[in-house]
């Protein structure tokens, strides 16, 4: 919005573009599917690449970068001490950090680990020598370092990636919608999953995905995390209206929302 400040004598051709922001991608405990979503953006990816310089992205390029980053995307959650140290080092070199995907934002499916005794789960994974393998309860990225932006979802929803990138590049805060998924689902005129006799986590899960799963015939699994002020009492009414067992809902919730504390 700045006006050209009296340098009318400057040549008509566009001034040399300022250096494009240096962007890097890193992954921790995750399936790396959210990074894949980035490469799946198609034409939009070209637009993003026009606006930024990707300097590190293990899944897509082999280059490395040894200076500071303008923006880093962090996929995955933190599940051992090594990861914690590595994340802190990345944070120290990054101006802006984006928690990218459910694992990074809320702990995601990795949070299910927190439903067990740590040693018990280590033993079942690593066998009798489990003590040799470092492991901590799952933490979301913001339980370890400061997070500037959240892109929720498992996987992330492409239009939201673009929105957050645009906000990050302009230094504007991005607000994750805090209304239930129903608010978007209704606009898509999906037949409510409850009317089909299926429990769906839409009424408690943060919107912002344009009810992507329900549009495609699936229920909402709650991958974007619970809304800040969920209607606790209402769950009873929802369940009784549709003759469903409460466990159906609570069990489903544990898939993505076990690592609660860090839900953002």
């Amino acid at each position, binding site marked *: *919005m*700045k*006006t050209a*400040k009296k340098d009318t004598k400057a040549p008509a051709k566009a001034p040399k573009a300022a250096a494009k922001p240096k962007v890097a991608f890193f992954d921790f405990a995750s399936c790396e599917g959210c990074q894949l979503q980035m490469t799946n953006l198609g034409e939009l990816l070209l637009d993003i690449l026009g606006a930024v310089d990707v300097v590190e992205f293990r899944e897509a390029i082999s280059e490395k970068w040894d200076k500071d980053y303008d923006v880093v995307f962090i996929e995955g959650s933190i599940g051992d001490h090594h990861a914690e140290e590595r994340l802190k080092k990345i944070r120290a070199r990054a101006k802006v950090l984006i928690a990218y995907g459910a694992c990074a934002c809320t702990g995601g499916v990795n949070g299910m680990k927190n439903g067990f005794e740590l040693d018990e789960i280590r033993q079942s994974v690593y066998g009798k020598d489990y003590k040799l393998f470092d492991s901590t309860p799952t933490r979301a990225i913001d339980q370890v370092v400061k997070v500037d932006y959240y892109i929720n979802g498992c996987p992330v929803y492409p239009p939201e990636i673009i929105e957050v990138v645009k906000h990050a590049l*302009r230094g*504007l*805060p991005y*607000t994750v919608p805090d209304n239930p998924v129903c608010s978007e689902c209704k606009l898509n005129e999906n037949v409510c999953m409850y009317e089909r006799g299926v429990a769906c986590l839409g009424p408690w899960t943060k919107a912002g995905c344009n009810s992507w799963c329900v549009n495609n015939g699936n229920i909402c699994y709650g991958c974007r995390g619970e809304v800040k002020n969920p209607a606790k009492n209402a769950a009873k009414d929802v369940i009784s209206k549709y003759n469903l067992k409460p466990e159906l809902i609570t069990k489903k919730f544990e898939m993505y929302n076990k690592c609660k504390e860090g839900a953002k």
Partner: protein
Amino acid sequence: MTEIHNSNWKLRKGQIIAAKQMTATEKWFDIKLEDGDLDHEPGQFVQVELYGVGEAPISVCSSPTKRGSFELTVRSAGRLTKHMHSLGKGDWLGIRGPFGKPFPVKLMTGNDLLFVAGGLGIAPLRSLINYVMDNRREFGKVDILLGCKTPTDMLFGDEIKLWQKRMDVNFSCTVDRSAPDWKGNVGLITSLIPGVTINPEKTFGVVVGPPIMYKFVIAELLKKNLPEKQIVLSLERHMKCGMGKCGHCQIDHPKNYYCCKDGPTFTYEEVKDSKKL
């Protein structure tokens, strides 16, 4: 795609001709519209469009008697206002408005005036105070009471010094928390009211401040027998459209007021049945 030439969503273009950080959280802007004066009345507000970021309702803090440009004082509170603080001289804005019902200046003519401003409330009130100053002989006795958290939070300090010096205005202020070089009153703004002489038959009390302040100040004014219809407030809501449609600024009151259209200025008589002021 058709162009709508008479759309009420069209923006006037305003350029910031001066800007100044007033306190840690408040910034002042002087804005010149390319198509002439804003042509507002005291107490009205504008919608400020920060292209690509969004629109924020801001009350005009300058008097319409000031021509050529208008002023806004913006507290960095939300996403938009925070962004607005990054703007300065030369930057362009989109402007819609002025909107809203102004202070009842005509009714006030010939009466005594008691202004009570708390915190940022001085911004909308300043549009009226300066109007009254510029038309001083039209009004009776003028008292200005100002309250803020600490001396460094005080807005328009230079102007306040002028008000203090004027013999045709009684000015007093108070701070919630004192500072070493502060020689004035310490305490809530309500503590200043008992000291003011009011002729309830011909006085208008104009009160602008944070929602929490209204209840206590109004109680004090009622104690002074000031009639409800002579207590004028300016209420805060999030006006998103300014046209009485979007619903955000609607007040929980049996009369269904839209703050942007039926307000933001109301008499206490009009809004006393509101669930929240």
